């Protein structure tokens, strides 16, 4: 009775079906891009800008962080969960990165304080000296003066380290840039020697302080902290969902608010803006639309996103962990029956997703170089939309990296394309909404027919 089912036949079928999925995703992306290119040419004629390398570069670089975070969201959604905190979590991570940069975190750790803190302390102790003078209290005056002297020495010590660092940097850039650097260095040296004088000024020009570079380890440490924050947030999400048995929707709704609050705490309810000298060039380079070297074509951030997507696709397909994620999302009882460690796998899913959110935060920080804790609100819906447009099912067990990637690209292209065509903002939103509904409806119909 068994029907003929030779091995080769089924293997061929499978590669055919995955090729089909790839083709479908590509076709959708190409269609959307072609549509905008054609409409653009029809409207603007020879001035059409959509189908230019420059435009495609800029669209891609604006969406690199969405792709990375959407891949994390995909993992969560395949496992049958949802992460409403992802957007705010990303902003929190970016805020932590910005904080680490602004506070010169490496220097702060090795020296116990950073230069601005030392400067602030000197200023405060100078004020106490003045109060003591006005009170004519000689004992107190002596004490506060000794304190000021101490602070002055400390600041001079820290400043000297920084100036030394700045001097040690090999000169590069154009002639005018080098000249500017030399003049800045001279200003700093002057300020340093002024501070060193026992009766010198008790304040340092904040502009000069903003020129100070961070310690070599600071950027790395800041990035590490940002990514680590993502993983910790993911861990918290996982623990709440697995051990407290709160459904993912509610659990992450709660942590969304917690992460927003934490971000505002870190940023002191403002936006953290590290100075230009504090953010190293190689971080900003991630978001340069035109990469250096030019043969990369797309920005380094975009390549980072693509590599991450590739790795995740392999994890989902070729690892035991990936299979278990699908098993849990498709039927958790079956997973238990098969001896899969469901709690551990679920927590790993949320931690991994948090890691990706952290990396997405690096990319988004590279573009803005600021940390604004409230900038992530609503972003999670974009991540979810990318997954869903790409055929992911919110009931779990279904979804592909290539689909999520296509979903993110389609949303990005529509957003940028509408702007380029001069479409009003409200029209863009309606278009995006229709795309989401139509994409999922088509997918449902296809599923039903199969």
């Amino acid at each position: 009775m068994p029907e003929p089912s030779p091995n080769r036949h089924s293997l061929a079928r499978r590669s055919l079906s995955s090729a089909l999925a790839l083709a479908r995703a590509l076709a959708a992306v190409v269609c959307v891009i072609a549509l905008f290119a054609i409409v653009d040419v029809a409207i603007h004629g020879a001035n059409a800008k959509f189908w230019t390398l420059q435009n495609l570069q800029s669209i891609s670089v604006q969406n690199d962080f969405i792709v990375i975070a959407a891949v994390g969201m995909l993992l969560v959604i395949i496992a049958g969960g949802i992460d409403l905190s992802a957007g705010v979590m990303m902003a929190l991570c970016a805020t932590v990165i910005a904080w680490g940069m602004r506070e010169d975190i490496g220097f702060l750790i090795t020296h116990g304080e950073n230069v601005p803190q030392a400067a602030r302390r000197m200023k405060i102790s100078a004020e106490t000296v003045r109060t003591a003078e006005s009170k004519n209290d000689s004992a107190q005056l002596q004490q506060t003066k000794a304190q000021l002297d101490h602070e002055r020495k400390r600041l001079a010590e820290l400043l000297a380290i920084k100036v030394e660092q700045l001097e040690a940097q090999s000169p590069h850039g154009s002639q005018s840039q080098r000249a500017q650097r030399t003049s800045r260095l001279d200003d700093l040296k002057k300020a340093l020697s002024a501070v060193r004088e026992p009766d010198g000024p008790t304040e340092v020009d904040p502009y000069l302080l903003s020129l100070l570079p961070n310690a070599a380890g600071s950027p790395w440490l800041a990035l590490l902290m940002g990514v680590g924050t993502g993983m910790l947030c993911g861990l918290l999400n996982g623990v709440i969902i697995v051990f407290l048995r709160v459904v993912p929707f509610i659990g992450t709704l709660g942590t969304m608010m917690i992460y927003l609050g934490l971000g505002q705490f870190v940023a002191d309810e403002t936006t953290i803006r590290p100075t230009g000298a504090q953010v190293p060039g190689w971080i900003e380079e991630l978001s340069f639309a035109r990469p250096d070297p030019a043969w990369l074509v797309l920005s380094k951030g975009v390549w980072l996103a693509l590599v991450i997507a590739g790795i995740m696709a392999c994890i989902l397909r070729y690892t035991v962990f990936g299979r278990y994620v699908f098993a849990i999302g498709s039927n958790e009882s079956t997973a238990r029956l098969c001896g899969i460690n469901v709690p551990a796998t679920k927590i790993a899913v949320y931690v991994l997703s948090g890691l990706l959110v952290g990396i997405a935060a690096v990319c988004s920080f590279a573009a803005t170089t600021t940390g604004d804790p409230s900038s992530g609100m609503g972003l999670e819906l974009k991540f979810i939309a990318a997954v869903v447009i790409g055929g992911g099912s919110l009931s779990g067990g279904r979804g592909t990296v290539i689909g999520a990637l296509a979903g993110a690209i389609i949303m990005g292209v529509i957003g940028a394309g509408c702007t380029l065509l001069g479409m009003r903002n409200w029209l863009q939103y309606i278009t995006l909404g229709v795309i989401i509904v139509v994409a999922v409806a088509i997918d449902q119909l296809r599923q039903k027919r199969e």
Partner: protein
Amino acid sequence: MENVSKRFGATQALRGVEFEARSGEVLALIGENGAGKSTLMKVLSGAHQPDEGKMELLGRPYAPSGPYQARLAGVAMIYQELNLAPHLTVEDNILLGQERTKLGIVNRGAGRAIAREALSRLGHAGLDLRLPVERLSVGLQQVIEIARALASHAKVIVFDEPTSSLTRHDVQQLFTAIRKLRNEGLAIVYISHFLEEIRQICDRFRVLRDGASVGEGTVAGTTDAQIVSLMVGRSIKELFPQVPHQSGDVMMTVESLSGRRAPREASFQLRRGEILGIAGLVGAGRTELLRSLLALDPIRSGKVRLGAIAPAATPRARLRAGLGMVSEDRKTEGLAQERSVADNLTYSYLRPYSRFGWLNLRRRDAAVQTWIERISIKTRGPSQPVRELSGGTQQKVALARVLHQEADILLLDEPTRGIDVGTKAEIYRLIGELAAAGKAVIFVSSYLPELMASCDRLGVMSRGRLREIRPVSKWTEEEVLACAVSEDQAEADEINSHA
């Protein structure tokens, strides 16, 4: 006196089934699992459209496009699993979908009168209409379903194995209600495979086998043996193939194992090459016994030892120690329906194909292919989603998983439920072969004949306790049934209302 007649002729699942139900009469539709009863139900209720053939109701063509239309036409279904909104009240449930309204506003008074009348026709006039139905026993919930059918002026009521989750007391109440409705002139179709029940309540019968109707007659004028031979359609030998096997040394010792509700202090030993059957009523704790052996449910006390090892109380540890389980419910537990045959077959044992967590898919699919051929799983290949397979084939995938993981002790929970007779025979043979190969099997089933035919020893459970284990030859069917209901009714009722 109105005549209700229906005729069908669908292709695969149903091959030209025909029967007629007359008003004032209870017609039994008898057939084994997989005989086509559930498909027939779906056609009757409008969930499926027949490919061929036609149905008539009261002399007019009857072709419902969905359950609602069927109900409007006067055909109501009472399914095995009840279809109630647990949080709504008795009244709301009875009137669900047929609320009496005036200008869009629910007319409570008129509705209440209808609900009250329907209940009193069933002999439950005193029931509080405002009670949420989740607080009622299963038996009373069924009464609510029947009342709903009456409230919609049903002329035909179809019962699909209505007694499977009822206590004996509730069964008698149900029968009283059915007789009453018959005497009021309704046509009743009663689907079951319990001959004893059919003898009690039905007037005529129709036997379904392999999607076709193979015989009919009056219940009074036919012997049980005649009906059974119609149902089975083949000799007992073909149905229950025997594979000779020998019990060896003790493999597993279970000492007073207790779960949250069931089992209660279950103790037994299982030998190599032995098939141990577990019989009992629904809700007796048979599934819970298997689940606690695999530590799927929390274990309160007791020991499970396999030889020298006492594995930790996690499914993972128990699986590694050599236990494997086939769940009674393929949809909600047994299989990940969306995933492929290969995935489902190997989830419990991916180790042979993985290195540092990375899988060799080619090797895995090749291994899956050999299993597909070895127990002839009817599939297009390892990558076909399980949801596309028939019930029997899905069951083979679930069994193949336990075989693939090289389990020494197989826990099979209703492994032949809802699958066709041919596949059943294959599964019995497979179980015998496993025992012959030195594995041990615990076989839970509600179908006593298959337990009697396949098992070496048979244990009976009731209200969570494993009552007695004897060699099969020392049991008679009557003794098993008596043992299964041996405890006082009050406690059994309590267990049922929790189920």
